C-alpha cells in the first residue's frame, strides 16, 4: 500500500519548525506537497533560516517522511522567500512569482489582431472566475494602455512594480512607462533586459492565468520570452488567408523549438456577418485555421467574426468582452476561453524537481 497524502501531511505536522514552537505546516514553511504512488515531493520555504539550519531541516524532513510506511521516495525542493532581499535562489524553475499558469499569445506577423485577441481572451478567462493577469510584452508597440483605456504609471512597491488594474485584470505594459507617442526604438540587449525585468519584477498577485501578449513575429524578443519563462502553453493567432497561414507555421515552430505545448490556433477576422441581413461573408477565404490545425496537429480553438465593433471598442478603451458580454464576438471568446482552460490543464507538465 502506498502512503496517503493525509499520512504524509500528518507526519509533516509532527516536525517542529526551527526557532519556533509551531510545526512546519503551522509555520507556513511547507509550500507544496504531492504524494503520488509512494513518491513524495515537498516544497519547503527557507523562511529566514540560516543555511546550515535549513539543511538540517531538509535532512530531517527527508528522514521523517522516508520512514512513513509506504513511502518509496522523498524529494525536497527548497524555495526562497520571495522578495526577502536574499541572494538569488540556487534553483530557479523559470516560474514567474505569483503566477500559476502562463499562456503566451503569438503571431508570426503583425496585423492579425493578436493584441485584440489577447485582451479579450484575458477578459473571457476572468469572466470564468479566474484571477487573470495581462502582460503586454510588445516592447515596440505597446497597445494595452489604449485598448484597456488605462493610463498612469505603476507604482513601485517593496522593490517590485505593482500592476495596474481594470475590469478585474492585473495589467502591465511598457506603454505605462512611455511619455509620448514617439516610436520605441530598442536595441537587442536592451530589449532582453527589459523583458527580463518584466518577468521578474512585477508583483503579480495570486494570478491563476497570466496572458502574455508576445511581441509580433518570431524574433529575439518573442523567443527570449518563451525561452525564459515556463510557459504552460502557446496560442497562435492567424487570419484565414493562405499567406497568413504560412506565417503560422513559424509561430508553431517557435513554440515547438522550446518544447512549449501549442494549445491551439485562434482564427481572427474569420467571416463578416452582415448586421442587416445576417449573411456570412468569408472575406479572407474559409477554413484556413482548420487546415493549419489539422496540418500541425493542434486544435482550432475558435473563430472570431470580423465586426466593426471589435476594433472600435479597442480604440475606445472599452473592450467588447467586458462591455458587451452577449455580443457574438464575446460569446466566441467565452467558448475559446473554456477550451484554453481545458488545454492548459491537459498540457500541465510538472517542472522537474531540482536538487543541488
Amino acid at each position, binding site marked *: 500500500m502506498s502512503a496517503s497524502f493525509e499520512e504524509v501531511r500528518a507526519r509533516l505536522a509532527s516536525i517542529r519548525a526551527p526557532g519556533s514552537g509551531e510545526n512546519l505546516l503551522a509555520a507556513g514553511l511547507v509550500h507544496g506537497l504531492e504524494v503520488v504512488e509512494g513518491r513524495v515531493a515537498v516544497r519547503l520555504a527557507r523562511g529566514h533560516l540560516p543555511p546550515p539550519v535549513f539543511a538540517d531541516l531538509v535532512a530531517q524532513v527527508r528522514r521523517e517522511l522516508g520512514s512513513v510506511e509506504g513511502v518509496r521516495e522523498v*524529494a525536497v525542493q527548497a524555495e526562497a522567500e520571495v522578495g526577502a532581499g536574499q541572494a538569488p535562489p*540556487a*534553483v*530557479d*524553475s*523559470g516560474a514567474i512569482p505569483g503566477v500559476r499558469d502562463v499562456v503566451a499569445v503569438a503571431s508570426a506577423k503583425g496585423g492579425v489582431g493578436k493584441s485584440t485577441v489577447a485582451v479579450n481572451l484575458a477578459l473571457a478567462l476572468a469572466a470564468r472566475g479566474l484571477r487573470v493577469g495581462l502582460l503586454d510584452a510588445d516592447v515596440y508597440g505597446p497597445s494595452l494602455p489604449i485598448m484597456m483605456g488605462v493610463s498612469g504609471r505603476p507604482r513601485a512597491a517593496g522593490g517590485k512594480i505593482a500592476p495596474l488594474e481594470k475590469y478585474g485584470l492585473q495589467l502591465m505594459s511598457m506603454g505605462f512607462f512611455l511619455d509620448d507617442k514617439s516610436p520605441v526604438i530598442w536595441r537587442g540587449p536592451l530589449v532582453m533586459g527589459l523583458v527580463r525585468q518584466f518577468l521578474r519584477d512585477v508583483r503579480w498577485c495570486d494570478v491563476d492565468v497570466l496572458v502574455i501578449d508576445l511581441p509580433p513575429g518570431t524574433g529575439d524578443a518573442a523567443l527570449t520570452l*518563451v*525561452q*525564459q*519563462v*515556463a*510557459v504552460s502553453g502557446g496560442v497562435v493567432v492567424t487570419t484565414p488567408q493562405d499567406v497568413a497561414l504560412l506565417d503560422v507555421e513559424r509561430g508553431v515552430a517557435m513554440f*515547438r*523549438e*522550446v*518544447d*512549449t505545448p501549442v494549445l491551439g490556433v485562434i482564427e481572427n477576422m474569420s467571416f463578416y456577418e452582415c448586421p442587416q441581413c445576417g449573411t456570412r461573408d468569408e472575406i479572407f477565404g474559409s477554413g484556413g485555421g482548420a487546415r493549419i490545425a489539422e496540418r500541425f*496537429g493542434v486544435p482550432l480553438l475558435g473563430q472570431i467574426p470580423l465586426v466593426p465593433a471589435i476594433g472600435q471598442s479597442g480604440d475606445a478603451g472599452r473592450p467588447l468582452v467586458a462591455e458587451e458580454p452577449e455580443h457574438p464576438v464575446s460569446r466566441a471568446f467565452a467558448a475559446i476561453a473554456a477550451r484554453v482552460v481545458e488545454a492548459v490543464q491537459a498540457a500541465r*507538465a*510538472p*517542472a*522537474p*524537481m*531540482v*536538487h*543541488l
Partner: protein
Amino acid sequence: MGVPAARPLEIRRVGTDSVEIAWSDGHRSQYPNRDLRRACPCAGCREQPAPDRSAGSGPLYPVEIQLVGRYAVQFRWSDGHDTGIYTFQALRAACPCVSCRAGARPGKVAG
C-alpha cells in the same frame, strides 16, 4: 510530431562527481561532471574549446542548477563557467549508460 520527448522528472547533483536525471520514460541517466562540462554547448566553448580545466585536480561540480523555460537546464560550474544551456533532448540523447550507447550506435560494441 512523433513520440513525445522524455521530460526530466528530477535533476539531482550526486556528490561532486556527477549529475543524475530521472526521465519520464522511466530511464535514469548519470552524467559525470567532467563530461558534461567538456560538452558545454555554449558558443564560447564550441568555438574555442577551453583549455581542459577538467584536467585540474580539484573537484568540478555544479554550484547552481537553473531550469531554462521548459526545455533546458543551465549549470553554474564550480570553475565559474555558466553559459551553457543543455537541452533536455540533447541530454537524453547523450545518456552515457551502456544500453543507451548500444542503442545509439547499433553494431558497435558497447562499453
